[in-house]
Structure formats: C-alpha cells, structure tokens
C-alpha cells in the first residue's frame, strides 16, 4: 500500500496555542482521510480531502491537501483539552494506509 509519513509523532501543546501536524507521501495520493482517536477509544473519521490544494475547516481544525497531492496538514487553532488524542492521516487508494499518528497532549 501507499506509505505515508506523519510528523511529529508526539506534540505537547500549551492550552490556547496552535499546532500543526503533517502527513507526507513520496507518491501522489488520490485522496487522504484524517481520523482522531481519543485516549482509550477507537479512530473516528474527521474528514476527507480529494482535490489538489483543497482546504477544509471544522471549527478550530483546518485541513489542507498539497498542490501536488503528496502531503497534507492538520492545523488546530487555540488548542483545548478536548483536542487530546492521536490524529491519523490515511492514504486512500482502495484501502487505507495509515500514518503512525501524532499524539497530542495539552498542558492546561
């Protein structure tokens, strides 16, 4: 399957700060999905990006698909304790290939 690299692996964040997690591939992706897994929970679908340069927002979360469709990013504004968890990107051909995830912890 397609390989996606996700950085950073761990992201400690001060409450109220912004942060970004990145997902990179050496090959062109047809589309990419993002999932969130809360501690002790299971992955839950957040969004899918399909078009080159696409930007989608969900409240304080901004998702972007690169122009070359080889990378994607998730930017969270004004981090809250509810943002704690692991965020996965997943390359989607006919099955998903998941990145290793970025685990976010929040300091109050």
């Amino acid at each position, binding site marked *: *399957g397609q390989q996606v690299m*996700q950085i950073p*692996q761990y992201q400690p964040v001060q409450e109220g700060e912004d942060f970004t997690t990145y997902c990179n591939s050496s090959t062109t992706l*047809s*589309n990419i*999905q993002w999932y969130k897994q809360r501690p002790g*929970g*299971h*992955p*839950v*679908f957040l969004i*899918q990006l*399909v078009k080159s340069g696409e930007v989608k927002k969900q409240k304080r979360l901004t998702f972007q698909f690169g122009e070359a469709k080889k990378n994607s990013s998730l930017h969270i504004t004004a981090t809250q304790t509810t943002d704690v968890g692991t965020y*996965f990107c*997943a390359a*989607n*051909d*006919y*099955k*998903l*290939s*998941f*990145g*290793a*995830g970025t685990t976010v912890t929040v300091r109050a």
Partner: protein
Amino acid sequence: DVKVTQSSRYLVKRTGEKVFLECVQDMDHENMFWYRQDPGLGLRLIYFSYDVKMKEKGDIPEGYSVSREKKERFSLILESASTNQTSMYLCASSALLGAGYEQYFGPGTRLTVT
C-alpha cells in the same frame, strides 16, 4: 448510527493457543477490515474482505487468517498465538472501497499472549 462491535475488549491467551476475534457490523457494509495497532506504528492492515467469502491480504497477514461467512461478520483467527501478536486489534467496516468511503471502527480488542 453505524455500529461495529467486537467480541471482547480484553483477551489473555497462552502461546500456541488458537484465538478467534469476532467483529459484527449492523450497516450492511460490503467491506470489513482487520488492523492491529502498536505504539509508534499506527494502524497496520492485516486482512480485508470486500464480499462474503472473499478476502484479500493486507500489509501484515503472516500468522493470521480470516473468515467471512456472513456479510455482517468478519473473524480474525490466530492459528497459533505468539507473544509478538500481543497488540490492540481493531475491526472496521465501510460501505464501499475507494474514495469517499470512511471507515467505521469497533472499540478494539486488546490481546495479550503470554
């Protein structure tokens, strides 16, 4: 709401035992998947099935087999459990393969092989 259920949340087995992990979905989805999740490695696909009795190997099928006799049920079988199969196992389903079809995950089974 889509519901994916797994037979056990926690399971402890001995080396060499045959282990069955069961997954059931209630949304009439065509596709079902088994992943294992390990720290720092993300989710790795073991097997998936796109129809009853149909299966396809994922990225790490060695040591595992699967069975899908009914559309709603997908079983993962460890023929002879080994300690390196200690992991979190996640089942998922989706309506179709490919773009636009999100996967719905079950709660996971944490398997410990001693």
